[in-house]
């Protein structure tokens, strides 16, 4: 078991999400950055879909009540084991009573802590991912007890720290496909999407990232239609909204671009003020 001593800014349990319930209006949810979360799981020898802790901007403080192993990936929030710095993307052995804490955010925006076997709190509709209205809790609170799938014994320590792709955190390139309504934009609008940088506004969450500035828009709303994580919507006032993992299942704004899966992961590590550039 793991006790939450401090939850951090926005910390939740997530796995790869909830599939098969979109027809009931239930979002996919799941880790925002699948690349980093999978890295943490794989380095522990877990299945990629094992549930992990997702921390946003500031880390949590956690007390472990059992011997196990963990791996932290994604954003660098200066993790510490009993106040001694530990490496990212490397297995760390944990003894009963150990405390994991985090310091200053050095790069990225979301960090993942995987535990050997995965976390196993409330499962709803086939997934451990927290989402308001589907699971009892949508974030972790102080004094929460987190259960671990402890049926397996931790692996022998065998992996060296893995070098991760630096570009995952420092590229501003966001690779996209044309969205279903892309062709309705004028040539000038189309090219202005790719010839300028956009800045991430403070309206950014697990549901969507809104960009600052606006695009001249003459498109009318569409008949409500399916959307996906990574769908870029153009609102009537010309704002661009990029839907993320907790997004609604359908929407009525024109869908002008669609992020590649890898680009959603890259965007998940960005926050207010960061610049991005779309690339077809």
């Amino acid at each position, binding site marked *: 078991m793991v006790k939450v001593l401090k939850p951090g800014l926005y910390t939740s349990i997530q796995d790869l999400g909830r599939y098969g319930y979109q027809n009931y*209006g*239930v979002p996919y949810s799941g880790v925002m950055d699948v690349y980093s979360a999978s890295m943490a799981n794989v380095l522990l020898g877990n299945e990629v879909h094992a549930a992990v802790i997702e921390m946003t901007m500031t880390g949590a403080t956690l007390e472990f009540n059992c011997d196990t192993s963990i791996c932290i990936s994604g954003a660098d929030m200066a993790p510490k084991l009993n106040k001694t710095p530990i490496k990212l993307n490397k297995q760390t052995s944990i003894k009963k009573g150990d405390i994991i804490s985090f310091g200053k955010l050095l790069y990225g925006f979301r960090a993942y802590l995987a535990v050997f076997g995965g976390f196993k709190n409330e499962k*709803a509709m086939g997934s451990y991912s927290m989402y308001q209205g589907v699971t009892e809790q949508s974030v972790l609170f102080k004094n929460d007890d987190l259960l671990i799938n402890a049926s397996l014994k931790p692996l022998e320590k065998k992996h060296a720290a893995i070098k991760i792709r630096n570009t995952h955190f420092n590229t501003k390139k966001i690779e996209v*496909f044309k969205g*279903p309504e892309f062709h309705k934009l004028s040539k000038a609008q189309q090219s202005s999407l790719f010839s300028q940088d956009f800045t991430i506004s403070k309206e950014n969450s697990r549901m969507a990232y809104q960009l600052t500035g606006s695009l001249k828009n003459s498109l009318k709303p569409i008949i409500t*239609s*399916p959307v*996906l994580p990574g769908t870029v919507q153009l609102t009537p006032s010309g704002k661009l909204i990029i839907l993320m993992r907790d997004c609604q299942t359908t929407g009525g704004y024109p869908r002008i671009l*669609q992020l590649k899966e890898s680009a959603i992961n890259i965007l998940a590590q960005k926050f207010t003020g960061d610049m991005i550039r779309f690339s077809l």
Partner: protein
Amino acid sequence: MIYKLTYKLFSERSVLIEWPAIIDENILNDVILFKEKIRNNKIKEIVELKHAYNSLLVICGDDCFVFGTFKKKLQKLYTQKGPHVELRLKKWEIPVCYDDVFGIDLGEMALEKNMSKKSIIELHSKTVYTVYFIGFLPGFMYLGGLNRKLHTPRKSTPRSRIVKGAVAIGGKQTGVYPNESPGGWNIIGNSPIEFFNPKNAIPCFANAGDKIIFKSVSIKEYKDIKMLIDAGVYQLESEVIDG
């Protein structure tokens, strides 16, 4: 299966199929039938199907997707005469209390429309609505069929909190908020029914294509129904209709 459909690649692993861009029950039926046909064919690449008014999104698993081939497969399936798909659609009777306690925007609507509250309630509760799909929020039904006289613009400033069960009108649409949420629709009543329960294997009772009728109940009836629901013994009224 007679419409001219378009097929678009949407993300690495989805195909968006679109019908003519109108809200129409015949189109809805065609969407639902094609969706069931695809489901019954158990195409191994497909992990999820979701539809809206005039569109169907076919979502595949990773790394098993060639758009051209897959599109041809779907096109062939659409035109191919298959076994009859039985839908077993239902008509549901949903109790709604339109009392002022719940219908907080009824007064304003009545003034603007120069109608009595009673006639608004009557118009709203005598229509048979069609469930087009569930989307937006978990358990939120997109209903078609709202009487033109009841079309009401969304509020200019949305409320930050609309209570669970609120029955509302927004533009040409009416619906029920399955859970507490922000929202800009005009609230005319409240239903004690659970529209979304994540603990049930099938979290919503209604399916796309089903019919809904709202039945006006008093506050006392509302409270009685609520009590039965909380005790887990309430039985929602429904009848099977022809698909």
